[in-house]
């Protein structure tokens, strides 16, 4: 469906381009939810914007690699160019539903704007279609809410509107960049369930980006773990949660507060993620890793399979499940 191949996004600065992501690759199958998890600055958001063709400025560009949608290369096309060549089909929702909606435009009009681009051929009445979409995302009183301005709605409702806008673009793939991070936990669960429900009903794929392992566990079918611009581990969701092999993934799990096991102290990963300008050679995680040896500090890393569909970028993969945190 969607295939990201060796995608490298860089900031072009004075002397040398700085790589925000380094050869990121993954595939999303039809109807699949792929979770991308990582901490701030790991490049997960830039990857999603690159997929959308929405990189924020001229200084940030795809250096190498490609994004394929159903086999067609869409890497260097902006969304409107994709419409022109008939390759649209990727929609996106963002972290801040408040700032992502135009404050001086009624929400109905913002949905219809997308319909006019993507739903012309169907000959459907955009008005009726907008109401349908609002029903689809469970907004009560759809007819009334169409005329609301964004500031008149709650955070959860705004994110539903954002989803409706995304759906108006007839997506094959929905890219969701931390869509529930700004929401309260009770509202978050509603939005997560809505996304899963829409995936089932509309059989679209979802690329879900988050920093929260809990959210990934709830929603994703498969997971990519990113660190310092690279995918360090990818696996089926149960596989990853039961049998993580990369020391960073292990570290993430041992950082999670768990009220059920209060007695055990957290085992944080020491140190902090490297800045873009001083990513070490070899394994970027080496300076924080407990298993580090000389081999990790230079050269290329192996991208090894551990079971079907489970790969990790590490010289010293840990086996034996989550408890084996050393």
């Amino acid at each position: 469906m969607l295939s990201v191949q060796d995608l490298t996004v860089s900031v072009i600065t004075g002397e040398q381009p700085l790589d925000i992501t380094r050869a990121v690759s993954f595939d999303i199958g039809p109807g699949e939810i792929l979770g991308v998890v990582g901490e701030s600055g790991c490049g997960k958001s830039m990857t999603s914007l690159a997929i959308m063709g929405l990189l924020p400025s001229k200084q940030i560009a795809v250096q190498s690699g490609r994004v394929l949608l159903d086999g067609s290369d869409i890497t260097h096309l902006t969304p409107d160019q994709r419409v022109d060549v008939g390759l649209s089909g990727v929609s996106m929702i963002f972290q801040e539903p408040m700032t992502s909606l135009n404050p001086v435009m009624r929400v109905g009009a913002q949905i219809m704007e997308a319909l006019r681009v993507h739903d012309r051929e169907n000959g459907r009445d955009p008005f009726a279609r907008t109401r349908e979409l609002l029903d689809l995302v469970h907004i009560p009183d759809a007819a009334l809410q169409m005329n609301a301005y964004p500031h008149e709605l709650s955070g959860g409702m705004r994110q539903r509107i954002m989803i409706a806008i995304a759906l108006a673009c007839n997506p094959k793939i929905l890219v969701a960049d931390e869509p529930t991070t700004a929401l309260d936990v009770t509202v978050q669960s509603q939005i997560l369930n809505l996304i899963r429900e829409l995936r089932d009903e509309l059989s679209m794929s979802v690329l879900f980006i988050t920093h929260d392992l809990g959210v990934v566990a709830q929603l994703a079918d498969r997971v990519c773990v990113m660190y310092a611009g690279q995918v360090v581990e990818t696996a089926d969701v149960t596989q990853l949660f039961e049998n993580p092999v990369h020391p960073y993934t292990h570290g993430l799990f041992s950082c999670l507060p768990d009220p059920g096991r209060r007695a055990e102290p957290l085992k944080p990963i020491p140190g902090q993620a490297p800045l873009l300008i001083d990513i070490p050679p070899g394994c970027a995680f080496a300076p924080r890793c407990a298993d580090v040896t000389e081999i990790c500090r230079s050269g290329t890393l192996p991208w090894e399979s551990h079971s079907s569909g489970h790969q990790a970028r590490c010289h010293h993969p840990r086996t034996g499940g989550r408890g084996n945190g050393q």
Partner: protein
Amino acid sequence: MANKSLMAVRELRTTFHVKRGRKTYALKAVDNVSFDLQKGEILGFVGETGCGKTTVGRSLIGLSKAEAGDVRYGGVNILALPERQLREVRLNVRMVFQDPYASLNPRRSIGDSVAEAGDIHKLFATAAERSRQISETLESVGLDPSFADRFPHELSGGQRQRVGIARAILPVPDIIIADEPVSALDVSIQAQVLNLLLDLQKGLGLTILFISHDLSVVGQISDRIAVMYLGQIVEIAEAEQLYQSPLHPYTRALIDAVPKPDPKIKISDGLAIGEPPSRLEPPPGCSFANRCPLVHDVCRQRAPVLKDLAAGRKAACHALDEVTK
């Protein structure tokens, strides 16, 4: 529970006056909140956006002006103290803020920021004494003493929050009010800071009021937890108890809504439907009634009061009998 109460809060109410167009609304950010803070404990306050948890913390030391209530600390009601004496109290009850960047003055060195409380209250006899204490404090939060000469923009988020904590423990206070101290941090850094807080609490015998929207974090660190909803405490209990057998339907909804890092446990959203009601014109009765799966007629008419249940356990709900069954 045999611990003695270090700070006793009774019927605290803090109201903000919000103007919308012509109308002025009285927003009860904190309404009739009572609890005891026991010496040496970590009391967690948890709730969603706008539930008043932050305002509780701020009202305790007068950063938000409480409208009514009694905060007994050191034998006096802090709320009634004149400004000058309140400032003395603030030396012993200190805050750690959510945004470690915004809470540090960009034009002051880390050392100056860490020593600020001491400087304000003129506690350093000599400059040498001052820099020695700065160094010691920085070390105790896991930072190199050389950080004293740096400026906030040179530090990472985790380091800044360590500075935020260092500033709250020089000189060592009785109580720390930590307002979402780890919300702005990445998971791996968050764990470091939580461990640091626990170490300091044990090492220095601190009492901490830990405010957070994140139930997992609060559950990990707190001895007791108070759950707030729209300005009121709906349940207060020991951490294990609260998790194993939540009494209030809201507590249950909150616990169930947290995504578990286990793909085998899926969350359902039948427990707290919809969103909170308007804070400016709250409905009569229980404020959770419109979202509650156990709602009765009485809930829409009369607000439940916080009832003492088992030892140290309180909840405010009309349907408690059903829950405990």
